[in-house]
Each structure stands twice: as C-alpha cells, then as structure tokens.
C-alpha cells in the first residue's frame, strides 16, 4: 500500500467518527456496513425461501396430497420464487457490489451513501409485508411469481400487499443501481480507466443499466393489475376488451433482462476467481466486456420465447427463436475465455475456485437446456413442464447462487482479516454440488416425460424421480447450514492473513489491509498500484 494511504487509513480508523451500537447499522452510510447488512438480509431470505422449497419437495416426495392443500402449495411456489429472486439473489449482489466496488475502483465509499442506506432499509419492510401475507384471509399470493392475470386477480386480501411489496423492491433496486452507476462513473481513482476496471465492476455497471431500464416496466405492469383489481379497469380482462396476453408481453419484457440481472454479476466474479487460481491473466478481457454488453443488449429482444405457446405469427416465433439462440454466441465467448484462462495455468482448487468451476460446468448445462427451450417446436412440448423448472434452477442455483458463494469465499478473508475453515468450505462445496445435481437433474427427466410444473400431486409414474429429487432437495438445503456457520466462525477468528488472501490475486482490493480500513481509499491509489492490480 502506498505510504500516504497507509497513514490515511490509520488516521481514519482512529478518528472515523463511526457511530456505535444500533446507530451504526440503522444510520449506516459506510459501504461496508451496508454491504454487510445486504448480505445478512440476503442470507436470511435464502433460508426462508429455501424453507419454502423444502416444504414443496416434502409435498412432492410422494404422489397424492400429503401435507398441504393445493392453494397453500401454490402459495409456497409463488413465495419461494419471489423471496429467492428479489430477497436473496438481488440483495446478495447489491451487498457484494457495496463491499467491493469502492475498493476495486479506488474510491473511499459509494457516491451516494445516504441513498445507499435508504435503498437497503426499504427491503426489510417490503419483505415483512410480503411474507406476512401468509397470515391474511385467503393466504399468500398463489398465482406464480409471474403474476399472470386473470388468475392473479383472484388473490384475496394479500393482493395489494404483493403489489406494494413489488413496488418497494423495485424502488430499492433502482436506487441501488443509480448508486452503482454514479460511483463507477465518478469515483474511480485517477488512472482507473474503464478498460482497467475489474470484470466484477463491469458486469455490475451493465447490470445497473438493466435494472434502471426494466424495473419500471414491472412497476407499470403491476400497477395495471392493481387498477384492474380495484378500480374497474380491464387492461387484462377479456370480458372488458382487455388482453391477458398483453400482460405476458409486458411482464417478460421485464422478466428476461431480470434473468441477466441475476446472472451477470456471477460472470464478473467467476472472471475474477479463475485467473487468480490459474495464476494467469484473464484470457480476452476486452472480449469479455463486449460479450457481457452483447448479452445485456440481446436480453431486451428475446422476451417472447417465454410465451411461444400463446400463439403468435410465424415470423415472430422465428425472430424470437433466432435472437434467443444468438445469446449462445457471447455466452460461448465467455465460456471459451474462462477455459482458455485455465489452459496451461498453475491451477489450485481452493473453495472459491471449486465453486467457480462448478458454475462453469453446471451453468453451461442450464444454458444448453435453454437452447433446447428456445426451439419453437420443442418448446411446445416442454412448455410448463418440469423441464423448464430444471432449466432455470440450473441457471439460478449452480449459476447465480454458486456465483455468490464463490464471491463470498473469495473475499471473506479480505473482509474479516481471517482465513476461514478451508476444509469445511470444501465439504460445503462437495455436498452442495452433489445434492444440487441430485435435486435438479431428475427434473429434466420428469419434464420430458410430461410432468407439469406448479402442481402438488402427480401421476404415479413420476414417483421415483420425484423421490430422488426430494432427497437431493433435503440434502442441498441441510448442507447450506454449513455456509453461515463457516462465515460466523471466520468472523470470530482464524488464521490471520496479509493484504492478499490468495497468491494469484490481482486488483486494488488486495492492496488494502485485511480487514480494510473503515473508509477504503481515503487517498487515491497511485498509477503504479492501479497498473499492478489491473493484471489483464
């Protein structure tokens, strides 16, 4: 670390004026404190959403209705999705962005710290509102996370709670995204050019633009649902001249970019980890940046592949099929570059690398099943079956969730100054990887055999693979308990590390002390330090 910085860091620690006790968290404006709160919140939601998933798998262990009535089962699937997408994965990314972006671009903090506080504190209210809908007459929303009318309009007292909660989540995401864009555009250290930025910062910048562009679309769609329900409009009611299919178009115009909002930061993290543990620079840095930007652009013109079966002109089917398949090109560039980075590298397999490699293999499986779903004639068979469930869970669990875990295992020593229990984390990896495949791979078979999604009961011929899938679900769920335990143990102590936790790591964050000072870069890093960090 540069000498003036070392002085500034010490100075700052002594006179940081940081509040203590509950005020430190409620009034938090420090990017690390807010990042920590986001990550704790996301972890809590991960276990609540995961609890719902385990109840779903419990019901599906055998055919017939075992524990829940169908309405409650549908509430479980709906709430599981909403909690995992908006409560676990998105806040986890924002938490990682808060922690890492200022440290990686050479800034003391996020550009808008008070806004940062506000965008976090919206979330606990939004999710308290959403989860408490289980206890109102009619129960929690049960129309699926896609909220298709007319079914969703039959929701009971929880309907306005759902709409308001979604508005709150959307507002929180947009505010967080604005903060990320403003920070990256204005707070970079002198010399930190755009093409010197780490891939995690790049992917988050593009994700932030996606968020700003599509969250308002969701807000518009759910507001129309609200007025249909309470104010007598008939946007989506055929009897009044409305069109339920229009909702699907509007929803998926938001929904498909949303998928990339969930996965792009994982691309960034994997692009940090693989070079570190291959002890080689990232292969094709610029190509990676352009590939991410291309994927983000294409995500806006493929939405109707989610709704081929509603009936649309042949030309539209062809357009959406081909544009969807086009996404395989930049994605292929990324997979090729990650593989090429490892080629002839000096590889080692610490937990972050293990999770990154599992991401590489398993996310690619999710990508391939996505290509199968992109084909219109095939999609007519797969639509609304467990094949779709298997596809998007391969993308989101060993994709997004493993990406988050890889990131946490990569940077946790930096955050705490302690190395975590590597053996236990390796156990966590193997248990997660084995059980995630036991859980989701059989769902491909179930879908291809014709088992529909979102049902609490099924025909007896689907029993065996459902049992296997449920066993995988219980195993995966229970093995996740290791994750908070490993983090808690690491926070409490462990082998002390220096500035660099990993021998092959590059980047400005590794130039700071571990744990880093309260304000990250009070003096901008020198050009030499930046050049050393940008080893691509």
């Amino acid at each position, binding site marked *: 670390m540069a000498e003036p910085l070392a002085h500034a860091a010490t100075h700052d620690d002594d006179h940081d004026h940081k509040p203590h006790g509950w005020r430190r968290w409620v009034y938090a404006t420090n990017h690390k404190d807010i990042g920590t709160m986001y990550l704790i919140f996301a972890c809590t939601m991960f276990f609540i959403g995961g609890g719902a998933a385990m109840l779903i798998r419990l019901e599906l262990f055998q055919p017939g209705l075992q524990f829940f009535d169908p309405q409650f089962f549908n509430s479980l699937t709906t709430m599981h999705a909403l909690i995992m997408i908006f409560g676990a994965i998105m806040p986890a990314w924002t938490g990682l962005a808060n922690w890492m972006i200022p440290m990686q671009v050479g800034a003391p903090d996020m*550009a*808008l710290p008070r*806004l940062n506080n506000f965008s976090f504190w919206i979330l606990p209210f939004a999710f308290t509102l959403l989860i408490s809908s289980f206890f109102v007459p009619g129960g929690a929303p049960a129309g699926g996370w896609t909220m298709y009318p007319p079914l969703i309009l039959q929701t009971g007292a929880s309907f306005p709670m759902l709409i308001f909660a979604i508005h709150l989540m*959307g*507002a929180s995401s*947009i505010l967080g*995204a*604005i903060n990320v*864009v*403003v920070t990256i*555009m*204005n*707070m*970079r*250290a*002198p*010399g*930190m*050019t*755009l*093409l*010197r930025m780490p891939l995690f910062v790049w992917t988050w910048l593009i994700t932030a633009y996606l968020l*700003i*562009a599509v*969250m*308002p*679309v969701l*807000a*518009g*769609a759910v*507001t*129309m649902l609200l*007025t249909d329900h309470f104010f007598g*409009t008939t*946007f989506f009611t055929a009897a009044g001249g*409305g069109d339920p299919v*229009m909702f699907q178009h*509007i929803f998926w115009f938001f929904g498909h970019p949303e998928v990339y909002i969930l996965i792009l930061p994982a691309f960034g993290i994997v692009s940090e980890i693989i070079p570190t543990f291959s002890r080689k620079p990232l292969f094709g840095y*610029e190509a990676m940046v352009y590939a991410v930007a291309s994927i983000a652009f294409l995500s806006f013109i493929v939405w109707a592949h989610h709704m081929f079966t509603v009936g649309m002109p042949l030309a539209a089917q062809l357009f959406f099929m081909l544009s969807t398949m086009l996404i395989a090109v930049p994605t292929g560039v990324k997979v090729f570059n990650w593989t090429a980075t490892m080629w002839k590298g000096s590889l080692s397999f610490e937990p972050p690398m293990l999770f990154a490699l599992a991401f590489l293999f398993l996310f690619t499986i999710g990508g391939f099943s996505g290509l199968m779903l992109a084909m219109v004639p095939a999609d007519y068979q797969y639509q609304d079956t467990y094949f779709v469930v298997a596809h998007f869970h391969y993308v989101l669990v060993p994709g997004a969730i493993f990406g988050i875990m890889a990131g946490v295992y990569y940077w946790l020593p930096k955050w705490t100054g302690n190395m975590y229990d590597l053996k236990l984390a390796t156990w966590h990896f193997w248990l997660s990887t084995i059980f995630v495949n036991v859980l989701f791979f059989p769902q491909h078979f179930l879908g291809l055999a014709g088992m529909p999604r979102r049902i609490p009961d099924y025909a007896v011929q689907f029993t065996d693979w459902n049992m296997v899938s449920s066993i995988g679900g219980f195993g995966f769920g229970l093995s996740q308990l290791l994750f908070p335990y490993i983090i808690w143990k690491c926070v409490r102590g462990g082998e002390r590390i220096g500035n660099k936790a990993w021998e092959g790591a590059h980047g400005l964050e590794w130039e700071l002390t571990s744990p880093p000072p309260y304000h990250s870069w009070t003096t901008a890093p020198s050009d030499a330090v930046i050049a050393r960090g940008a080893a691509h």
Partner: protein
Amino acid sequence: MREETLSAPSAARTQAERRRSVRRTAIVFALIAAGFYFGFIVMMLVRGSK
C-alpha cells in the same frame, strides 16, 4: 488495450469538481429512472384505458 479512447478521471480533479460531477450524474440518472418509472405507469394506464 485502447485506454486513450476511454475517459479516466483526471488526476488534477478537485474534490469540489468530483462532488459536482457526482451530483450531476445522480440527478441525470434519477430523472431517467423516475421518468421511466412513472412514465411507464402513466403510459400503460393512458394507452391501456383507451
């Protein structure tokens, strides 16, 4: 790497300039986001109710 074609914050940039720049970018993006947010809602309500 084509760094010369991309903007980097100037080393000579003062704290006040940076603060102004942060404020300006924040306002621009806030206006864009608010325009999208309320614009979409109003557009959908107006067009949908015709």
